[in-house]
């Protein structure tokens, strides 16, 4: 019998359906492992479950849930101290859809507080360790989800991506991370960071699993008036030839901030695409240089409003013995929010304040419009746009925590895509040395994964998944440390 823990989710579904595996046993195995993990990827593990039916499309395969998603009856905190004790009376639509398709809830995964961060060091539950090298970060904000999947503690997990929070941790952990088109999946029940950017999506071992999860998470939801669902059914990715497909590299890319090993892996990936029949080209994205600046105005501005509800009045933690209303607000928020969240609330409040609104928020929205136009023009001349997912390999825990600006620069390649609301996937492209200086072979000591980001036009997820699948099939990239022996 196959080692159940080394199956992808789609393989597990198939094994259960033919009676080769038992869903309850699978859940119990993962639950046991998740309960004894050492990388701090889980903040809580759910109860044992008896899956209802192996006939359900997901056949009772367990799923790990980022702590940003509300699950009825289960403490949900977005890994913030301020939500201590908060037990939602409802379940996020994306999660209930997965459950309706048969997935069983495994546990809550660690994350950067309110999804703010790129290293998973901003959690009230402490930093998560990257299973490839436990002295390093797994990326963020969906770091717990990525680490859990990479460490074989879950077959797959949900993540959320506002400026790269699915793609970057997937890249750092050697996994597939898909950020669908904005609106494809309902945001209802996802604790809001930046409403116009937040997007749920899968973090999986392979492209097939990403498609399977998207299939059941997507859909228009009457509880989210900005949700659209997909325009077409999500299909299982097929190994279609890349012949004639145009893959564009934004030009010019400033490679000075990119580790040389990451650049090397990217170059190899480009050659691989060509070898598969794809055509490499270049497109200008003239306003991409301003994307980070615009993002770090818009996202904090929306966050400053979204986080206003955490005031100690109705739920979560309230400061002890307040002397009055203002004191209660100030101390509740002062004690409840971590430093990165406070930083962004301050930035956002400032950007929206009268006298600065036009200079910052309005200008940032204008930049966003320009970026959208850039992409529309670019996709008139290509099928996909490719970049490295992140400019570096996973960095050390504590390395950048006191330098928020260098941390923000790590979102260089993911943020413009988020501003435009486009679908993008990060697929493992290869390995680099632990200092990121050179591409290396899979068996090299201390090698760390590098992701390839592929971006598609709005709602072209099926084409995107097909391209990613073809690329995945052609890589000799090793299975990650998620290939665990059951012993």
């Amino acid at each position, binding site marked *: 019998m196959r080692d159940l823990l080394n199956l992808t989710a789609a393989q597990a579904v198939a094994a259960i359906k033919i009676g080769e595996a038992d869903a309850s046993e699978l859940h119990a195995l993962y639950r046991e492992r998740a309960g004894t993990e050492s990388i701090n990827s889980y903040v809580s593990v759910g109860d044992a479950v008896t899956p209802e039916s192996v006939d359900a499309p997901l056949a009772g395969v367990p799923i790990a849930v980022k702590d940003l998603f*509300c699950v009825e009856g289960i403490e949900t905190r977005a890994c913030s101290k301020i939500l201590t004790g908060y037990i*939602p009376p409802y379940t996020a639509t994306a999660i209930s859809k997965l459950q309706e398709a048969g997935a069983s809830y495994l546990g809550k995964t660690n994350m950067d507080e309110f999804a703010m961060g790129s290293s998973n060091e901003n959690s009230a539950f402490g930093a998560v360790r990257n299973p490839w090298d436990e002295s390093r970060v797994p990326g963020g904000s969906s770091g717990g989800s990525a680490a859990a999947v990479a460490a074989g503690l879950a077959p797959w997990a949900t993540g959320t991506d506002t400026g790269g929070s699915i793609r970057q941790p997937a890249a750092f952990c050697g996994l597939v991370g898909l950020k669908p088109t904005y609106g494809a999946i309902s945001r209802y029940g996802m604790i809001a960071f930046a*409403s116009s950017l937040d997007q749920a999506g899968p973090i999986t071992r392979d492209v097939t699993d990403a498609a399977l999860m998207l299939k059941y998470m997507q859909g228009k939801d009457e509880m989210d008036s900005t949700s659209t669902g997909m325009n077409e059914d999500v299909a299982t990715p097929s190994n279609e030839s890349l012949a004639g497909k145009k893959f564009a590299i934004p030009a010019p890319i400033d490679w000075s901030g990119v580790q040389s090993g990451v650049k090397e892996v990217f170059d190899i990936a480009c050659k691989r695409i060509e070898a598969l029949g794809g055509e490499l080209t270049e497109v200008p994205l003239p306003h991409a240089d301003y994307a980070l600046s615009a993002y770090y105005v818009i996202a904090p501005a929306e966050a*400053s409003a979204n986080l*206003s*509800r955490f*005031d100690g009045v*109705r739920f979560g933690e309230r400061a002890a013995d307040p002397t009055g209303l203002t004191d209660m607000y100030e101390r509740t928020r002062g004690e409840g929010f971590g430093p990165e969240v406070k930083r962004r609330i301050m930035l956002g409040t400032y950007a929206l304040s*009268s006298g600065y609104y036009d200079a910052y*928020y309005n200008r940032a929205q204008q930049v966003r419009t320009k970026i959208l136009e850039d992409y529309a023009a670019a996709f008139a001349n290509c099928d996909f746009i490719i970049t490295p997912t992140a400019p570096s390999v996973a960095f050390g825990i504590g390395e950048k925590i006191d330098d928020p600006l260098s941390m923000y620069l790590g979102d260089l390649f993911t943020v413009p895509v988020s501003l435009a609301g486009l679908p993008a996937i990060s697929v493992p492209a290869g390995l680099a040395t632990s200092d990121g200086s050179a591409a290396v072979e899979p068996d090299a000591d201390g090698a760390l994964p590098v992701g390839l980001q592929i971006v598609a036009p709005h709602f072209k997820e099926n084409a995107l998944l097909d391209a990613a699948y073809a690329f995945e099939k052609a890589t000799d990239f090793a299975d990650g440390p998620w290939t665990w022996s059951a012993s």
Partner: protein
Amino acid sequence: MAEYEAVIGLEIHVQLSTQTKMFCGCKLSFGDTPNTHTCPVCLGHPGTLPVPNHEAIRSAIKIGLALNCDIAPRSMFHRKNYFYPDLPKGYQISQFDPPICGEGELAGVQLERAHMEEDAAKNIHVGESGRVQGASRTVVDYNRGGTPLVEIVTKPDIHSGAQAREWLQLLRATVKQLGVSDVNMEEGSLRCDANISIRRVGQTELGTKTELKNMNSFRFIERGIDAEIARQTALLDVGEKVSQETLHFDPASGSLTSLRSKEEAHDYRYFPEPDLVPVAPSEALIDEIRASLPELPLQKAERYEKELGIATDTAKFLAFNADLGAYFESVLAVAGDGADTKRIGDWVTGELIARIGADANPAESKVTPEALARLIELVKEKAVNNTGAKLVLDKLVESGGDPDAIVESEGLAAMGDSDELAGIIDAALEANPKAADDMRAGNMKAIGAIIGFVMKQTQGRADGGEVTRIVREKLGL
């Protein structure tokens, strides 16, 4: 002393009476047990999102069309950020620019805009005073939180308390006619703030304005505005400046107290609500709503005047006062064809209002439309004279009942051309020979003494006109 002109703009909040709240499915209700109509969305739970109520959007368009506003083909919702326990999300979803209803006009008053927003919940301060000062604790009832509102903002086109009152009555009647709100001031479904400034006549720029908050009756609005105009005039007369502040009018003492100065004004940090898509009503929808508009008070006043022969002022008074107008129409309905519509109008707007008060709803009084119609018919038939009819109305207002029975039991039946009346007039002429002589000499004013005598003898049942006619006959005049 300089001549001043008051310049007043009004901001009116209308609570829509939709089935459910603005952004969630909770039931709307007034006066229910606190916090029984709440859900994760209107309590602002993490992860929840607003979903717009299409009935509320229709109602807002309806109000806009009735106020001759331009309906925006695409308007936005915005977040208005501030912290208060009655505001669950820490921001109110409102509309900044563009609002769903742009510029408009009603009865000569220009409108700036009418926009949609959600109401806050209600803080209840527990303590002796019931106010936040000195409260031992504050509890919140979220039943009201998320109620759909339409905020109507006028241009500074109003110049007196009386004009403000009359216009507001028209506005209230107009909205009421649309059936989109209870417009009940006591229950807060119609709330009005006034921005008031004064300037020298002939001056074009506006003076410093003050804001008069939350006035909950038409009478207080008129009095409050006039009191504030007087206060500002007195300040300017002695060379002082008006400072920008928010005021509260205390109807009991007639005094104005300052709530806060504008220097502490909030920076609301408006920005487009990213959880909602723009409101984009189709032309077809707007046309459909326009076609569904009922007869509005201004049209009604015109009809009363032209078709029912009612004097302009009375017609407006009836049409602009929704309750009164509705009552008037029910009296007309009972009275049937051939009724004296003008007389009915005068009785409703005159004698009845004098007894029950201008702000009262006559439908809630003890005077049924049937009773009033019958009373007016009795007057028309001269079965009771005016004096007697007023006494009957007193009784009706006090304890209701049937006018015929009251006339009977109180002995108020008019005497008409009876032998009894002739006899009493003979006795009056006999008792007042000088008055009779004066009249013969051409001084008809002297008849007052005769009428007084007759009225005293008949306890007012005689008809003055009838007495005059008989006296003239007897004296051969």
